[in-house]
């Protein structure tokens, strides 16, 4: 005991040793900005729109659902960005996946679950194509996936019009009910809690006595589950270390035996699969697929990831941060309807927020790497 305290004393008398406070450690976390931003946003809307119903059960579910949809793709985009690459084809992949579900189910008579599996296998294929192209050619992923953005969107439109003569494929709702796996993407969770809260009169009810918010949407569950999984992957597994290494220094990582190519390809598959999860949730909820679904979502996902602390240059960031980035996005995009502010200003807010985040992240990166 005495020797231990002595060694601690010795250590603290080391002239090179500086006490680092808990606060400073926290300040160096990548997700700090998004966490702080979320708190600010909630305080802001709490004051401005606290009595408007925005934070009622129904209102909360509403903005959580918007956040969740974006969060699903933002978390995957964040992993890829930490791995040093972008995927601009996420938005188009959402539209493409929607069609991959709807056309086989409606026009070819496939069972819905088979169409869903088909969409996921197409996603793996697209992700693999993106990944192998980037890894093999060494071209910037920005260019490769930009090409994929147009290819997928164009193909989605062309194929849909060729087969259906239209750009929308409705009629899926009836198929959802009897399907063995569709509930994974469409069922509300914890319905009994909401029914119970409704029976107590704690949340708003419809005319027929059922609660207005029927449960937690599947997308929210997916969002939370994917964030937890991605964080576990990043922080607790070898693969996570490889993601950081691949994005931080490709050559260095390769020199010490990290399979950089495989890591990147798997991350591209990850974003395409996440886009398909997004598509499943949307298509099964709306009961129809639309060729324009997911338009511009790739950019929103990047905004969320960057606001969440990911560096555009790779090697640094967090999945939790991206999830909070999506939360900010969802809260503001829905919350703005509860205020007197014209909703046109939302995009302005988005841009400003991204700018602030990038400047803040840059500062954090300097702190982390320059011994301050």
């Amino acid at each position, binding site marked *: 005991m005495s020797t231990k305290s002595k060694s601690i004393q010795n250590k603290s008398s080391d002239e090179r040793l500086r006490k680092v406070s808990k606060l400073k450690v926290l300040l160096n976390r990548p997700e700090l900005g998004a966490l702080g931003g979320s708190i600010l946003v909630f305080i802001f809307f709490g004051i401005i729109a606290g009595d408007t119903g925005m934070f009622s059960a129904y209102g909360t579910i509403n903005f959580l659902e918007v956040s969740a949809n974006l969060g699903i793709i933002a978390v995957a985009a964040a992993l890829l960005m930490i791995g040093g690459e972008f995927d601009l084809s996420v938005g188009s992949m959402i539209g493409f996946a929607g069609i991959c579900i709807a056309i086989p189910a409606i026009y070819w008579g496939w069972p819905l679950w088979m169409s869903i599996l088909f969409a996921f296998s197409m996603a793996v294929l697209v992700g693999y194509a993106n990944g192998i192209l980037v890894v093999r050619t060494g071209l910037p992923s920005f260019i490769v996936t930009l090409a994929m953005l147009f290819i997928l969107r164009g193909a989605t439109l062309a194929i849909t019009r060729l087969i259906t003569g239209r750009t929308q494929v409705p009629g899926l709702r009836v198929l959802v009910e009897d399907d063995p796996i569709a509930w994974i993407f469409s069922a509300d969770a914890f319905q009994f809690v909401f029914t119970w809260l409704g029976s107590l009169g704690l949340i708003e009810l419809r005319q027929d006595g059922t609660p207005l918010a029927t449960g937690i949407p599947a997308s929210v569950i997916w969002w939370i589950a994917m964030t937890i999984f991605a964080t576990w992957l990043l922080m607790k597994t070898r693969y996570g*270390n490889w993601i950081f290494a691949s994005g931080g220094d490709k050559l260095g990582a390769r020199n010490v035996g990290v399979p950089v190519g495989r890591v990147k390809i798997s991350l591209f598959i990850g974003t395409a699969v996440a886009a398909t999860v997004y598509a499943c949730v949307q298509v099964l909820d709306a009961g129809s697929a639309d060729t324009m679904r997911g338009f511009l979502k790739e950019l929103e996902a990047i905004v969320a990831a960057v606001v969440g602390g990911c560096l555009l240059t790779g090697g640094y960031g967090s999945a939790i941060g991206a999830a909070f980035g999506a939360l900010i996005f969802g809260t503001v995009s829905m919350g703005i309807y509860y205020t007197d502010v014209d909703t046109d200003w939302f995009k302005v807010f988005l841009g400003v927020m991204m700018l602030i985040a990038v400047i803040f992240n840059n500062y954090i990166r300097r702190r982390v790497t320059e011994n301050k």
Partner: protein
Amino acid sequence: MSDNLIEFNNISKFFGSVIALKDVTMHIKRGQIMCLLGDNGAGKSTLIKTLSGVHKPDEGEIIVEGKKTIFDSPRDALDMGIATVYQDLALVSLMSVTRNFFMGREPTKGFGPFKTFDINRANTIASERMGQIGIDVRDPSQAVGTMSGGERQCLAISRAIYFGAKVLILDEPTSALGVHQASVVLKYIVKAAASGLGVILITHNVHHAYPVGNSFTILNRGKSMGTFEKKNLSREKLLGMMAGGEELDKLEVELKEIDRIAKN
């Protein structure tokens, strides 16, 4: 069997019509530091890459612990215990000391899909190893970017040793460092050799090489000018041999000539 850890006998390497290396012979013993000196373009890089398995030699043989060997890849060389620390160090400055130390070779715990990176054990090993070389890693989760150049160099060397290096090839480990930092790194290299490793130290700085080296191989225009034991070689002679001596004499004459013409 000789006491040589590794022998390179009459190694030649050609790139098309260019002779990059010709008949280079080097022997590295356990516990010894062999300095490889040479000016820019002398073939040092090619030689390192041949030693570490990036290039295959066109002529000659590599003998590791008495056995003739061919390296098909850097991985092969690494598996035989020949580790190369390149100038870029293969460190990611945004990642923590621990994550860098175990990059690509992370210890795991658990089973199957739930196998996780054993970060606690990794932290302990990393700070222990760094502590052994006198670098107090205050917090093994701090980013490598916060470390000094010398500390980074030591981290890269220490990592190579931890993962079973018998022969260390160090590419210009002191070139980007100040006087103090360089001496820290050189001290560590001497310690590493004393523990039984063979070290090939590549440098063009005679003042760094001479104090630590046991023998010196001088490379000039792709050819070895021979290997010299320290006892047969003075610092001045070594300096003279490193292309510099003769060239500088010539330069002096030429400068005088220019000066004379200018005056007239």
